[in-house]
C-alpha cells in the first residue's frame, strides 16, 4: 500500500537552515546536511529545501549545498527557490536534486511548467502554490504571501496540472506559522479536483493536525518545518500515532 509521506521542510539561507514564523523573524535551525541526515534516520520520507534568498549571485552556494546533501542522503529531496529557467533546473538536477519546486516563476511564465516537464519529465516538477483567503476567495499569492495575484487558487492548480506539474505543494498562508492545523477544507477540494499528488503545508502544530489532514482530506503528504526542527514533534512518534489511526505510513 502507498504510504502517506511526512516531509520536513528546511528553509535555507546562505547554506544554513532557517525557519520563519509567518515568513518573518527568521531563526537559525542549523546545518542543512546534518539536519537532512538526521531526518532520514528518524524516518522522514522526503525532504524539501526552500532557498529563500535565492538570487543569481548566490546560486553557486545552493549548488554546493545540494551536492553535499546528495552525497549524504539516500531519500528523495526537492529543492525550490529562485528557479526561473531550464538551465537553473538542469544545474540542480545534475547536482543531485530529485525534484525541483517552482512558485512565482510558474505564475509569471506558466509555459515554464510545460518546458520543464518536457525536458525532465513530469515527476521532476513540483508546483508550489501559496494561497490566502481574500474576501472569501482563495487567491494565489507570491513573494511569501506579500503579493496578491489575480489567480484563484483552485483554477491555477488545475491549470498547473494540465501544463505538466507532477505534484502540488499547497501552502495556506492563513495557517502557516499559526500551529492551528492545516486548511483541511481547501486541501480536500484541491486533492479531489486533480489527479496528481498533493502535499499539504501550513499550520502543523501538533500530531493531531497530521492525523486530521490525512483522515479528512485526500492529500498524499504533509509538510512542516519548525515542529520538526525544534523537536516538538518527533517523526517516529508521529508515524506511530498515524498508524494507530490506520493511516498507511512507513515505519
Amino acid at each position, binding site marked *: 500500500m*502507498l*504510504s502517506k509521506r511526512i516531509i520536513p521542510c528546511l528553509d535555507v539561507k546562505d547554506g544554513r537552515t532557517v525557519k520563519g514564523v509567518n515568513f518573518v523573524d527568521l531563526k537559525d535551525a542549523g546545518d542543512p546536511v546534518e539536519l537532512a541526515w538526521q531526518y532520514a534516520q528518524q524516518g522522514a520520507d522526503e525532504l524539501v529545501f526552500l532557498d529563500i534568498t535565492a538570487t543569481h549571485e548566490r546560486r553557486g552556494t545552493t549548488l554546493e549545498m545540494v551536492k553535499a546533501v546528495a552525497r549524504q542522503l539516500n*531519500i528523495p529531496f526537492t529543492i525550490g527557490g529562485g528557479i526561473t529557467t531550464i538551465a537553473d533546473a538542469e544545474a540542480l538536477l545534475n547536482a*543531485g536534486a530529485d525534484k525541483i519546486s517552482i512558485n512565482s516563476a510558474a505564475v509569471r511564465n506558466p509555459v515554464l511548467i510545460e518546458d520543464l516537464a518536457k525536458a525532465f519529465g513530469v*515527476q521532476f516538477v513540483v508546483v508550489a502554490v501559496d494561497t490566502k483567503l481574500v474576501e472569501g476567495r482563495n487567491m494565489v499569492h507570491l513573494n511569501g504571501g506579500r503579493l496578491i495575484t489575480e489567480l484563484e487558487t483552485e483554477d491555477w492548480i488545475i491549470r498547473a496540472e494540465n501544463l505538466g506539474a507532477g505534484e502540488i505543494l499547497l501552502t495556506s498562508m492563513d495557517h502557516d506559522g499559526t500551529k492551528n492545523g492545516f486548511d483541511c477544507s481547501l486541501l480536500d477540494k484541491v486533492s479531489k479536483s486533480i*489527479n496528481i*499528488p498533493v502535499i499539504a503545508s501550513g499550520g502543523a502544530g501538533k500530531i493531531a493536525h497530521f492525523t486530521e489532514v490525512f483522515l479528512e482530506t485526500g492529500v498524499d503528504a504533509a509538510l512542516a518545518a519548525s515542529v520538526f526542527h525544534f523537536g516538538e514533534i518527533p517523526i517516529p512518534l508521529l508515524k506511530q500515532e498515524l498508524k494507530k489511526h490506520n493511516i498507511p505510513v512507513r515505519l
Partner: protein
Amino acid sequence: MITIINYGSGNIQAIGNIYTRLKIPFKIANCPEDVNGAEKIILPGVGAFDETISMLDKSGFRDVLDKEVLENNVPVLGICVGMQILANGSEEGQLSGLGWINGYVKKIDKELLVQKPKVPHLGWNSLEFSDDLPLYKGVDKEEGFYFLHSYYFECEEESNIMSKTFYGTSFASSVNKNNIYGVQFHPEKSHHNGVKLLQNFAKL
C-alpha cells in the same frame, strides 16, 4: 567490479555514493570498452523509454551489453526506466526494447483501474515477494521502496515477476529471469532497504 552504465545524467551518482559508503568497489562506464569484463552491471534509469534506448544505441553500449548479459551471463540490474527497457516495447515510445524479458510497458491508466490512482505513482510502497530471494535478503517488505513512475512493466510470463506491488492494480515491482534483474523503484533513494538491495546485488 560493479559497472554502472553512464548514458547521460540520472541517478548514477546516487548509486555510486551508496557503494562508496559500503566500501564496495564500482566503476562508471562512460564508453562500451569500459563494460568489458564487468562482474555486475547496473542500468540506471533516465528520462523516457525511447530516449533511453536511443542513447544505448548511439553510445554503442547495446552490443557490449547483449554480449556480456546474454552470452557471458553477467548479472544485470535495471533500475526504473532501466528495468522498463528490458521489455519488448513500451506505450511510452515507438522503439523496441532490449527484449531480454518478455513483456510490454504500459501507462498507469486511471480510467482502466478500479481505484483510479493518481499518476505518477509517487512515494513509498510495500512489496510482496517470497522469502528465499537473494536480492531481497534482509529487506523489510512493509517499509518498501520509493517509487516514482507513470508506466509499469507487464510481464508475459508470470514466472518472471519477482515482486508485486499494489497501486490501483497489482503490478510487477521487480522482475527476474536468470541473470537479469529489474526493479521499478529507486533503491538509491530508499534508505536502509535500498542500501540492503544494492549490497545484495553486489553479492549475487
